[in-house]
């Protein structure tokens, strides 16, 4: 790695550059011996390009990447790793852009890193989302088999996101639901922490393989533990000190947000550790976790300020009630039924005994 070459491409001193590599290594849980390897891989002239596809999404994940906590880390990817195609960031447009996409795919077949942002539309043949006259489904099915590695960024690309929420009119699904014969790394989150994405890319560039993944395809270094297990409010949780409503004394005192709907106990992510922009994260700022890294989170994690999802009553279309209410009504109903049953029994016993005494009077 020549320093001059580095300086030409990147506004980073070598010292800062190594610092960035070290922070990436730390995020991945790797030791300091990995730092020179990462540095070498990133600056190697043979490093593969990154191709970034936008499907049904809000570009929030790209935005989050552009605001990555250490701008250096993002610069690393954006400047140094060649980002051959990114609809939001590239200069090219129209046919020129599409041509450069296909050129890069062909030239780097089997090597490039394919990043997908946004859900894949599968409803009605995928007609609801087209780029350059091609449906997302076609584009993905064409490019994915040629990729060296596939990374799905954000909740939409991983689990379908908001457009996959019931009733999912466009048939939105995650990349994994379409590309079944290739491993897909899921960087879940709405948006995900950019560091998790960048670290995954660096890992792949360095070792030529994907990091260890959990069952849902999320890298274990970032999604191995629940939010709740590393949350700074956890001691308040154990102590039984809860915020009752936003803005109350408990809230001001920094108590646990469990009772105002925090989904930390059901959500896997490293937000408490790898904070957004190294500054803060939702729970740190006083809002409960909404569980955005979990599958189907728009359906399952809402209402965001309740502990558990509501239940849809089959009879009343669109009527949602809390499970709690159903349970209480069922128990109250049963109690009433039992009381009725007991009253009936007592009444019958009284009647029977009257009948008995009169009967026995006759018999004797």
């Amino acid at each position: 790695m020549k320093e001059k070459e580095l300086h030409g491409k990147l506004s980073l001193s070598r010292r800062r550059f190594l610092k960035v590599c070290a922070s990436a290594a730390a995020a991945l849980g790797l030791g300091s011996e990995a730092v020179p390897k990462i540095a070498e891989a990133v600056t190697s002239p043979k490093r593969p390009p990154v191709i970034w596809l936008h499907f049904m999404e809000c570009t929030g994940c790209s935005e989050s990447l552009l605001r990555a906590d250490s701008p250096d880390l993002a610069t690393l990817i954006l400047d140094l790793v060649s980002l051959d195609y990114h609809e939001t960031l590239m200069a090219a447009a129209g046919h020129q852009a599409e041509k450069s996409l296909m050129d890069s795919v062909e030239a780097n077949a089997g090597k490039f890193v394919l990043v997908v942002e946004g859900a894949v539309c599968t409803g009605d043949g995928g007609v609801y989302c087209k780029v350059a006259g091609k449906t997302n489904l076609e584009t993905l099915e064409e490019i994915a088999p040629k990729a060296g590695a596939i990374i799905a960024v954000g909740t939409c690309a991983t689990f379908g996101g908001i457009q996959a929420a019931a009733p999912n009119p466009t048939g939105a699904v995650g990349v994994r639901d379409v590309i079944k014969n290739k491993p897909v790394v899921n960087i879940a989150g709405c948006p995900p922490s950019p560091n998790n994405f960048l670290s995954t890319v660096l890992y792949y560039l360095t070792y030529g393989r994907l990091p260890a993944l959990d069952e849902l395809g999320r890298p274990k270094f970032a999604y191995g533990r629940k939010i709740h297990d590393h949350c700074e409010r956890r001691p308040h949780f154990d102590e039984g000190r809860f915020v009752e409503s936003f803005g109350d004394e408990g809230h001001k005192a920094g108590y646990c947000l469990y009772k105002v709907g925090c989904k930390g106990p059901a959500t896997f992510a490293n937000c408490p550790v790898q904070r957004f922009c190294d500054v803060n994260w939702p729970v740190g700022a006083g809002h409960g976790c909404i569980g955005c890294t979990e599958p189907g989170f728009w359906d399952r994690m809402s209402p965001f300020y309740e502990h558990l999802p509501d239940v849809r009553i089959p009879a009343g279309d669109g009527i949602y009630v809390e499970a709690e209410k159903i349970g209480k009504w069922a128990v109250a109903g049963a109690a009433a039924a039992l009381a009725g049953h007991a009253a009936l029994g007592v009444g019958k016993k009284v009647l029977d005994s009257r009948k008995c005494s009169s009967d026995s009077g006759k018999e004797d």
Partner: protein
Amino acid sequence: MGANASGYYVRVPVWSVALRLYHWTFALSCITLILTGLYINYPPISTWAEFMPSFSMATMRTWHFAAAFFFMSALAVRFYLYLFGNRYEKIQDCTPVSVRNIKSLFHAIMFYLYMLKEHEARPGHNVLAGTFYCFVVFISLLMIVSGLYLMYPETGWIQSMGNAIFGSQQMARFIHYAMTWFFIFFTMIHVYLCIWNDIFGSEGIISGIFSGRKMLPADAVAKDGTIETE
């Protein structure tokens, strides 16, 4: 009453020590699990008093987990008894799998609806109760699976199993909680019907779950001929 013209009752050993132990372990752990579970789901009191440590949520969770292990052990015993217990504890004795048992099922329903006066002289569970208990055992399994998944979400096979059954932690949490109400519901009905049976039947079933013996009409026992008495 009619079927017991002689008016004598005999004491019949029905429930083994293992079954009685199972019953009480299950019952006490259920009560602990329901109470601590309701607290964990929605802690009604916030201990804002910071001058005194309470550690309430952590304590409730500890009790909940401890009770859960008793619950699981109890259930394991019940499964063993379903297969290898005495003739009244076996699964085929208390589920509607034979003509005699189907008759018993309807008999119990009619009896509970005050449509029959006669209590069925039967050493084991009546089939209505037995079938319902099977259902409870099944729901208990669901509780165990969802509970383990919530408690050990990072453990390999538990994670795979939970993901396959529930899809996400939140779903497991929801089912785990919703089923709590089933156990409250069941406990209520069970306790009520036991008291009711103790009043309207002659078996003395409440003392039976302590002593393991039931009082059965001598005539019915003599007619059956296979029931061992004391």
